[in-house]
């Protein structure tokens, strides 16, 4: 099938261009080989190892292990502790992901729309909003930790000035801890979404807006019926990338709450880390990681399949 010889042509700017025949070139194969090998080594081999470890009883602090068959998988779906922590982590991860997508994409789009209509001097403000992206998440986490301190944090002090006398326990309250993390990651990530949306907005032809204005469309109608549909490829891209990165959140949780209070911010990656490095159970961490991998794969594939039908690629 690779050796099929067939000359292909394509018309580009009115000129007929001859393409290389579809056949197997050894030179192409060897040029791609290093990249393929690296990909196998750093992506597929670890996944294969993960599957292997999931059938062992390997502890992090031990160099010896035995193969134990499906024991870890049975533990995952039957043990009281695993079900308790697994369902909790999945729930926390999904809530966080939904919140983060709403903040990053929603506020990012609004800011992009705003800056799209502002004059050039406002580019400084745009840069300010994007700037947190350059700061390491661990540093941001520590700054937020201080700002959100119940007794001495600047946020509670500011709230005190406007009449909120009872200091809010941002990181220790069951309902607010995850919100606090979302505040940090939202502040950190919204600038990126804004910039991507802004470049997409600049790519939309003005003709659409002029034509709709002549037809009497309001600004809101233009946004609803022109801007949003034409931004849908960008939205899909941002949705998928933000979804995957949100599902894999770890650093902000580690710095801010360490999964607490009482596992209320224990996201999946943090749970996997806890099993592997706190409990030294590499075997159990492997089965949870594999399950998480499958969940991510299924959701991402389904999202692409569903949303692709509603995406408009002609801007």
């Amino acid at each position, binding site marked *: 099938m690779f050796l099929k010889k067939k000359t292909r042509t394509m018309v580009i700017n009115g000129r007929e261009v001859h393409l290389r025949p579809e056949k197997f070139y050894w030179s192409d194969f060897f040029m791609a080989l290093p990249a393929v090998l690296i990909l196998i080594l750093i992506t597929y081999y670890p996944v294969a190892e993960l599957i292997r470890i999931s059938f062992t009883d390997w502890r992090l602090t031990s*160099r010896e292990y035995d193969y134990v068959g499906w024991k870890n998988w049975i533990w995952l779906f039957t*043990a009281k*502790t695993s079900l308790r922590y697994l369902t909790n982590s999945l729930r926390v991860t999904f809530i966080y992901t939904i919140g983060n997508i709403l903040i990053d994409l929603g506020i990012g789009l609004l800011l992009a729309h705003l800056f799209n209509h502002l004059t050039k001097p406002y580019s400084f403000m745009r840069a300010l909003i994007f700037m947190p992206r350059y700061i390491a998440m661990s540093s941001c986490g520590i700054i937020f930790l201080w700002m959100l301190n119940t*007794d001495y944090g600047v946020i509670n002090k500011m709230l005190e000035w406007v009449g909120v006398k009872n200091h809010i*326990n941002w990181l*220790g309250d069951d309902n607010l801890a995850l919100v606090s993390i979302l505040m940090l990651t939202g502040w950190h990530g919204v600038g990126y979404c804004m910039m991507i949306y802004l470049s997409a907005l600049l790519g939309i032809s003005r003709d659409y807006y002029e034509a709709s204005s002549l037809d009497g469309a309001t600004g809101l109608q233009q946004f609803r019926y022109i801007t949003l549909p034409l931004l849908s490829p960008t939205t899909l891209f941002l949705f998928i990338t933000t979804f995957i990165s949100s599902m894999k959140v770890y650093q902000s949780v580690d710095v801010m709450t360490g999964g*607490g*209070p009482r596992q209320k911010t224990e996201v999946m990656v943090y749970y996997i880390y806890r099993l592997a490095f706190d409990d030294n159970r590499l075997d159990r961490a492997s089965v949870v990681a594999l399950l998480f991998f499958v969940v991510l794969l299924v959701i991402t594939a389904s999202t692409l399949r569903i949303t692709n039908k509603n995406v408009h690629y002609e801007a």
Partner: protein
Amino acid sequence: MKKLFALVLTAIMLLSCTALAEFDKTIPEGTSFVFWHSFTGANEETLLKQIAAFEAANPGIDVQEQYIGGYNVIHTELASANTAGVGVPALAVINVPRLTSYAKDGLVEDLTPYIEAFADEINFADFYDGMVDMMNNEGHQTALPFGQSGQIFYYNKTLLQDVGVEFPTKMEDMDAFLEKVYNHTGKTVIDIHGTDNAYFYCLFTNMGCFMIDTETNKTGLENEKALELIKKLREWVDKGYIKWVINDVGNTLMLDFTSGECAACLYTSSTYANYKKKAEAGENGITFEVGIANQPYGDNGTNHQYVAGATMIIPSADCNTQAQKNAAFKLICFLTNPAQQLEWATTSSYYVTRKSASTDPQYAEAYNALLTKLPEMAVLDLNSYVAKTKHELFDRCGDIFENYMSEIMANGMDPEEGWELMVEEINDTLADQ
């Protein structure tokens, strides 16, 4: 034929025993080994100074000390290197609670033969019993104490003198103490470190409630006395006597205590020098004298104090030669001797691990120097320190314990409901092994 076989077998066994008995303690010239530690600032400076003194006294040994990071970083690095079988240091400082699982998985050397072989350099009997017991796993001495600390109460001595009370030594006196101080100041009396069970666990064990009952494999916290204590602590929280600090704990405790927002706090003994300096200099607005106290006795006079902090291990990995391990042990002997321990304690506020440091006249000058700088160290009776339950799930159960305590004390969860859920979760965890 059978007799011949038995004779040969006996000979082999005898030879093996002889080989075991003869521990090769040689350290050839030019032996170099890697030492991982987690100390920074003044503590690191003192450590480097002591290592330099060791190298000067042992010119044939080169110590390559490396700061790796906090205890968690050392754990992950050590476990990874051990798995890979390369890059394992010959000596490392780890956090005490990790030791049980390290010993179970054979990650650490049994130091007993080293202690016997180097008996002229280390007086094992001179270590405080509770400290070495904590590092003994199933009869094997798997580590030696270094950088030990305890969970103690700091109190504003000046304030308590004004109020006319002393910090209570028994739990039964705590109620009256809290009430009296609170009525005088109108502020929180004690800040408690609420995110690490090590700090308040002692209050429970002194009431006879232990985290894990190794015989039944269930938690001893299901004892009704634990519930009573939880309810009592919650009552004190509700009355404003106690503040259960659960976020940014280190900073909050330090600021609350040194600014006079609370009269006392429950924290690690290793911050004594720092607290004393800040309080005496009036760095946060008020000047006062700092007092320290052990955890209060329980109902029937039970007095358990627990050691925490660091400990020194020699990893068992084959990537280090016996000579390197011997050299590492020689450094342990040096760093844990009373003279070095006194210098170390004076800098760091960590406990002196050797009994003779306070009793042997040859160390009197150094001991007096320690007491001049940190006078309250004399208050702590290190003989009362004992080993905690050694169980590989102790930390996991401890996490559950502190999580529920935080919920009850800081987030308003009903004490009885929280206690029931906590007991159930710890028992499930213990059963799931």
